[in-house]
């Protein structure tokens, strides 16, 4: 009921009432389906919920109020870049010319979108320092798969078929090793050095003729720039492997470091992080992939081509035979890319540089503010995020990072990413982003410091948190042991169709 009353909501199914709803679509002729053979028809209508529009609205309005969101408060979820999503981008994606265009429309009908995509590729190529970009992948992990499949095709085309391994640092995001597996590679995990960077010796030891690629997240998931990246890249190339950069953390280095220019062969970009397309409660995103010239032949098809007369078209089937093929249906998550394009245009060169400067400044400011209350495992200049650890607090008080995270909820903040990367004990990865004000950063630091105090003075208040949220901690064990993944017991929409 919003501002007052019970906040948790019944399910759509509990709200259902046979005979409700209707009035939206004219009824087709009664014999509309007569020509469909009985055997192919559905015997029992699906038992979908029947609601009238007012109930639908209340359901989703009230449910939405149970969510924490960037639009309601500070969301310093490390590695996820939860920054402000400009509203003009939402408007742009909904322009009928963009939103209503059919993906199988002939090129002549799609010139506006094709031009936008072509321009966007160029902008991303400039930012990434790459020679070409594909906009097809639907997310970061999808971009990784696309990139690693190109690596595979590259080696295979050169007859280099013994390269079956991908080196991945232990601090990397889970998508990296999972991608390697999906692309048919074996993952070799490289430990981190004491300074948080890749252990270069271990790396050199693992590198060899079986190495197809290295996947480096830079800045790393610890928020640290790999300062020995030059060495790593050189060794990789000397070994005949390719260097993949996980660009999920590009937000930190816009205009400061262009991976392609620096020697990476291929990288993906998360538009839903760096270019602020909204995360949507878990998606959608887009994961454009940039490549250097030697990988261009392998880019997925179709790409956008500009003709001499200034018109645009999609590549035709088979036009680039070395392509790894499609990684999805149609051309890409265009609605997401329209938003990214608008964001990029609004910022321009100077704005993008400021994005990174301010993101990095904010992270370092928080690091400085939290230094006394929390252990900062790598207490040097971080990039857009940094890891703090409650390991000492835990030793002293028994209060764990999980508890601190839950207690932050009581204080009105979304918790940071916790226990990631897995390499840091009781870690929390804090990413403030560039769109949060100093007042907000201070309030958050104050809250975390206060909680550190509570852990000492009144640990129970922390370990039993949250107290103010719509629900308390959940029974995840039962959820996994006896999974209830769908509603049962609707009796089916067998009521006569209402008018």
């Amino acid at each position, binding site marked *: 009921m919003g501002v007052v009353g019970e906040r948790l909501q019944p399910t759509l199914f509990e709200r259902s009432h046979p005979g409700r709803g209707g009035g939206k679509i004219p009824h087709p002729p009664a014999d509309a389906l007569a020509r469909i053979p009985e055997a192919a028809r559905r015997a029992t209508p699906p038992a979908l919920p029947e609601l009238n529009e007012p109930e639908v609205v209340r359901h989703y309005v009230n449910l939405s109020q149970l969510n924490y969101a960037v639009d309601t408060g500070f969301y310093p979820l490390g590695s996820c870049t939860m920054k402000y999503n400009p509203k003009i981008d939402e408007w742009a994606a909904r322009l009928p010319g963009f939103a209503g265009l059919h993906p199988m429309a002939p090129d002549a009908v799609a010139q506006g979108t094709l031009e936008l995509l072509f321009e966007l590729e160029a902008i991303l190529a400039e930012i990434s320092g790459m020679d070409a970009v594909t906009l097809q992948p639907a997310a970061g992990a999808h971009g990784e798969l696309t990139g690693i499949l190109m690596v595979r095709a590259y080696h295979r085309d050169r007859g280099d078929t013994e390269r079956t391994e991908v080196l991945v640092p232990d601090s990397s995001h889970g998508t990296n090793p999972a991608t*390697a597996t999906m692309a048919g590679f074996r993952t070799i995990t490289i430990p981190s050095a004491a300074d948080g960077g890749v252990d270069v010796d271990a790396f050199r030891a693992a590198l060899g003729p079986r190495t197809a690629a290295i996947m480096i997240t830079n800045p790393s998931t610890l928020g640290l720039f790999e300062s020995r990246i030059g060495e790593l890249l050189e060794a990789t190339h000397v070994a005949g492997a390719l260097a993949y950069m996980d660009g999920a953390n590009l937000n930190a280095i816009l205009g400061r470091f262009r991976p392609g220019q620096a020697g990476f062969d291929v990288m993906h970009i998360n538009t839903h992080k760096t270019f602020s397309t909204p995360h949507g409660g878990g998606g959608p995103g887009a994961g454009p992939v940039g490549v250097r010239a030697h990988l261009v032949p392998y880019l997925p098809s179709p790409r956008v081509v500009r003709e001499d007369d200034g018109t645009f078209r999609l590549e035709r089937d088979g036009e680039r035979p070395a392509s790894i093929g499609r990684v999805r249906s149609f051309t*890409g998550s265009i*609605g997401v890319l329209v938003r990214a394009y608008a964001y990029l245009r609004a910022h321009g060169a100077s704005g993008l540089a400021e994005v990174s400067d301010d993101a990095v400044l904010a992270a370092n400011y928080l690091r400085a503010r939290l230094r006394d209350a929390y252990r900062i495992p790598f207490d040097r200049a971080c990039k857009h995020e940094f890891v703090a650890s409650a390991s000492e607090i835990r030793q002293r008080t028994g209060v764990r990072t999980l508890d601190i995270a839950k207690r932050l909820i009581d204080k009105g903040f979304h918790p940071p990413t916790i226990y990631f990367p897995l390499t840091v004990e009781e870690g929390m990865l804090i990413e403030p982003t560039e769109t949060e004000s100093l007042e907000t950063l201070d309030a958050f630091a104050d809250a975390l410091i206060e909680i550190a105090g509570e852990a000492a003075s009144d640990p129970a208040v922390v370990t039993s948190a949250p107290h103010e949220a719509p629900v308390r901690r959940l029974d995840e064990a039962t959820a996994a042991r006896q999974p209830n993944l769908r509603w049962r017991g609707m009796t089916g929409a067998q009521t006569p169709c209402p008018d």
Partner: protein
Amino acid sequence: MPYGPHTADDRARMLARIGIDAVDRLFDDIPADLRSGPLRLDPPEPELELTARLVALAGRNRVDLASFLGAGAYRHWTPPVVDQLLLRGEWYTAYTPYQPEVSQGTLQSIYEYQSLLAELTGLDVVSASHYDGGAATAEAALMTCRATRRERLLVSRAVHPHYRETLATYARGAGLTVEEIPLVPDGDAAGTTDLDALGRLLGDAERPVAGVVAAQPNVLGLLEEMPAIGAAAHAAGALFVAVVEPVSLAVLAPPGEYGADIAAGEGQPLGIPLQYGGPYLGIVACTEPLIRQIPGRLVGMTTDLDGKRAFVMTMRAREQDIRREKAASNICTNQALLALAASIYLAAIGPHGLRDVAASGAARATELEAALAAAGAPRIHAGAYLNELVVRVPDAGAVHARLLERGVLAGIPTAHLLPGEPGLEDGLLVCATEVTTTADIERFAGALRDELGASSTNGTAQSPVAGAA
């Protein structure tokens, strides 16, 4: 920076606290020789000017045509309530519900989505979403390999070519073999999956098949003998993946009923705008025994410490952030907001509304078939179809282009869609839905009659003819 909060003063205060004199210091760890110069991009564009630019670009797309395009993406009318609810920041500016205590909105909505799709597909386990129909189909096919520990996949050639190509790309990566099941070339079953050929392909005991993939309706709009395909697959120890279109499931038998182990498909028809191809909604559903193979997120119902009902992500050990290289898939960011759109659409339109949408498409397609036949473009196939059909038009590609100039988007030349497929050289795949109007159909038929009259007088058949040439 247009959306940033910091003034020079704020920055100075932050620098002071950090104990440095310039932001540049924070980038000293980037090796000097690898630092980049300023980006060569345009300067920031104020929103007022950006507005004009975007309006101009969008205006260069033509969305005012009488369109008969389908083939995997469908024009539907979406109640405005759907987008108005989606535009709430609480939905679209949240992230994956890692902290369930402050994410019950998203979690419950995913649980409801799973339930709605389980009901539509007749399969109990539904993932929280995949990238799109193509990726979902590929992931479903990979599931069959993991579950059977076999490495050979059979895909009907009447599965959308993009899905087949995506599947091929994924399979190549995973070192799997994909073979296509040919289509019946002529006769009553023309255009559907060749069951005899399927039998032969499954019969090769040396190379056991993990999964058989077929689409209902298939990419030519035809209804397949899904029970027979499923039975054949099962007889050979393979799993059966049905590629489905969710609106059709209001009236067509659900995969769970005809023996599919997995359903995959594109959720776009459930209230999601066309947007030239995305973001869309990949649907993957499976039977309970396959639960540990399904990729992507799952949300389950549970209770909190006080016993209150609540929802949480569950069975996470399949996922990349926990399992890393042993994960069921690398998927992380998915299509949650689109799953929400689909749920709101289903809630708003209701079961009867969904049936009306599906049946209206069928009714409009019947009308379209008759009008085109009368204009000289009879249907090519004899089999049953729902709302997409292929008509024969001599010199289809050229006619298609000329119709475009007359404001009619006359579907898709089948020669492009399924190159080399016998009997489809002269076809147009056309589609009708509840938004297709009689006026649009008349416009199409009228323009076609003109074109066919103008281009040739050696009369094409005036009535539907079954089978291919």
